[in-house]
């Protein structure tokens, strides 16, 4: 038995800039508040769901059961099981796919998929040398052994390891990786700035028309995404200096996503479950695909895996890239979105790398990220997938039945998750 999982609705808290409004909130605080907002929206107090699946990219070791603990702290029935997932920036969408798959298989009738991240309350790791000494002290049996172990302490060991936004195998930050890809695909500065401005304008317009009234619940005094600049324009962005790609780089703080804090959650269910509770079905999750590239040795762009995942997904569903009413391409960097679009249009790339005789072709830009994306909203890594799934589902629902949307999210480690929603 398979059936398509319904997307009933979603909730997120406004995304904050790092070290700002949510500086004192933990991942568990934010995820719990987000679940409670979803509970309030759909009257799920005391309801036992099939499963809650969520995760965080930056996670304290004490949060080994982050999602389950958040469920226990929420208004959901304590009997609702939960588990954590992590696939870098793909976490949120992957969580939705996992819940949807179980619903499709009839293993569960309902579930919540979510994600949360804080760059303000990120775990600090103890420097590896110090950690070894401390572990030796802990395992020492005699006082002498303990003293001997402690004698191994050195001042330099006290410096903690800050979490870095760097790829373990290349040592390059994500931005540096993206800059390499931008140069490779000759993505210009002006088009990146234009994409960023469009993101801010679209997000601001969506807030103004009340689009987020049933998608976002304010938190700790924040009512809109803190990074949103409704009056952003190309002239202002042009004045910013490059932050990645060296002096002649094209990537600035304006066309790259800022570090942010936030959480999101999506309610999925079988059609029957939703109908029994008089809950809406905004859209169905039709299918999804993940892919990975070899960014270490293969000379491929770190954030280009969705480019590879998409044709597989399209072929399996008998669709062309143009068969969509809306496209949600996560704006890790403006250049990432533009490189993705360019790659799909490039005959040589499509032939050699994707094995396609005909390139996937162009995407109608008026259908792209119509309610803004990560450049304006911010990007708390694991929370982005939930933000996109809920907003796209609502957009499709507003557009009427039979409308189709494509989601593409790139992730660290050279991975990518793409999915199709249909109203």
């Amino acid at each position: 038995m398979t059936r398509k999982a319904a997307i009933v609705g979603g909730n997120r808290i406004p995304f904050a800039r790092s070290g700002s409004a949510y500086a004192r909130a933990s991942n568990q605080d934010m995820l719990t508040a987000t679940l409670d907002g979803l509970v309030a929206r759909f009257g799920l107090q005391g309801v036992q769901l099939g499963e809650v699946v969520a995760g965080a990219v930056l996670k304290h070791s004490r949060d080994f059961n982050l999602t389950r603990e958040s469920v226990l702290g929420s208004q959901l029935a304590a009997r609702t099981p939960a588990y954590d997932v992590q696939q870098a920036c793909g976490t949120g969408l992957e969580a939705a796919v996992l819940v949807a798959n179980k619903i499709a298989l009839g293993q569960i009738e309902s579930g919540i998929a979510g994600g949360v991240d804080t760059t303000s309350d990120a775990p600090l790791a103890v420097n590896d040398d110090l950690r070894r000494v401390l572990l030796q002290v802990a395992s020492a049996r005699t006082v002498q052994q303990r003293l001997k172990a402690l004698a191994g302490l050195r001042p330099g060991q006290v410096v903690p390891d800050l979490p870095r936004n760097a790829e373990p195998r290349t040592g390059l930050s994500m931005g540096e990786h993206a800059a390499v890809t931008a140069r490779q695909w000759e993505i210009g500065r002006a088009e990146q700035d234009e994409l960023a401005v469009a993101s801010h304008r679209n997000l601001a317009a969506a807030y103004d028309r009340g689009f987020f009234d049933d998608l976002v619940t304010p938190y700790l005094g924040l009512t809109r995404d803190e990074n949103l600049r409704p009056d952003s324009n190309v002239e202002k962005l042009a004045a910013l200096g490059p932050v990645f790609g060296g002096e002649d780089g094209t990537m600035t703080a304006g066309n790259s996503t800022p570090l942010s804090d936030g959480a999101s959650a999506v309610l999925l269910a079988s059609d029957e479950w939703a109908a029994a509770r008089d809950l809406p079905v905004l859209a169905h999750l039709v299918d999804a695909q993940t892919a990975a590239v070899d960014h270490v040795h293969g000379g491929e762009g770190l954030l280009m895996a969705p480019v590879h995942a998409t044709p597989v997904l399209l072929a399996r569903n008998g669709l062309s890239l143009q068969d969509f009413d809306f496209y949600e391409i996560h704006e890790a960097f403006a250049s990432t979105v533009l490189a993705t679009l360019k790659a799909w249009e490039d005959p040589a790339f499509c032939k050699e790398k994707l094995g396609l005789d005909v390139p996937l072709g162009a995407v109608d830009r008026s259908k792209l990220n119509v309610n803004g994306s990560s450049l304006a909203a911010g990007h708390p890594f694991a929370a982005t997938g939930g933000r996109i799934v809920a907003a796209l589902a609502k957009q499709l629902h507003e557009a009427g039945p039979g409308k189709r949307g494509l989601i593409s999210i790139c992730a660290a480690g050279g991975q990518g998750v793409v999915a199709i929603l249909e109203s």
Partner: protein
Amino acid sequence: MTQPIPEDDLIVSDWYRDFTNSGVGATLTKRLGLPRPAVLRRHEPGAPLLPGPAVVGTAGEGRLRDPLTAVLKDAGVTLLSPVTADGGTDGERTAAVLLDATGLRTPADLAAAHDFLAPALRRLAPSGRVLVLAEPPSEAADPAQAAARQALEGLVRSTAKELRGGATANLLLVPDGAEGGLAGPVRFFLSGRSAYVDGQVVTLTAAGATDGQDDDRPLAGKVAVVTGAARGIGAAIARVLARDGAHVVVVDLPAAGQALAGVANEVGGTALQLDITAPDAPERLVGHLRERHGGVDVVVHNAGITRDKLLVNMDAARWNAVMAVNLQAQLDLTQALLDADGLLRPGGRVVCVSSQSGIAGNRGQTNYAASKAGVIGMVRAWAPALAERGATINAVAPGFIVTEMTARMPFGTREIGSRINSLQQGGLPVDVAETVAWLAQPESTGVNGQVVRVCGQSFLGA
């Protein structure tokens, strides 16, 4: 973490009331002749309607003695026989004194009212209830009868001012044919639900008898909407409607969403973030109710704002903002609910929150008072149309209610504001909520187009 602050923490404790009810405080305030505000009897689910017996008297040949007695018996109230001025010193305190004055023909008959009430009031217990039932002066047979009926208003309002210990006096006008709707209103005025309703006149309209209701969960199975429910009076209304059995859809500005979600989760309801002044607000509310609940039974227009300034200094923005939230949105939302086929279910209830300022006026509040007076006009005009659908629409006009807003007022203003009423204290949000919930009950079907003040018989605009 999204839990709202519990109501009790918000209420600046009435230190004066507590002090005057303490041993030393009581002696001191008595010697100094200072007012001694009582601790009011408030409704608790499961508690008996009255904490003691009641006594029913008549002035003239009334027609309500029997139905009234039946209502009291049904509610398990023990009835004492009336005593005369010189007799009956057995000393048992009464919790309620009811007078059936429907038999009044001339002012001379009023002497009987006095004869019954004077000794009865002497035996009235703290938080006792005086309820006089009569017929509307407007339907009198002749001027003498109209005079006698109208005289009761002066009698009841003055009695309310003389009562102490948290006791109240109210007048219920029951025209011919309205007996069927007697039970609900009588129970309300005797119960702790009406703790802060004092010196009021409510006129019933002819209405068929209802099927009765479970008085502990009178709203079981009903769907209610409350606007402005993220905090204050609106949150209290949501709690009381939920306590009475309703599923409550709480509505507030998107920016108030965190507190709103807390209220929704507390009452097991659902949150709808909506600016009620948005052009598409009526459409969105109707769509939401239709999709999620298939209809609605109770609509409470509670959201309201103040933008105070003397009229000469008032800018258009202040004027327009207050009008938009307090009056126009109530009109637009109600119209949309009435237009949406079958959405407001049979027996529907619309309750609009007005204000004492809309009755008495208030310096610096021309915009606010105008909007709140407008609500009263709207309610009266709509009442007949709603009656045709078996529905009702009423207004509740709170007086000085202790909320976050009033807690922030300067000490002097707050102290005076809360004392200038017959109960010598401010009301609580729950008092407004209880009155709203009463109007929402199935058995309130005979109460339509009324304005019920919840003001402890405020001296303002009385």
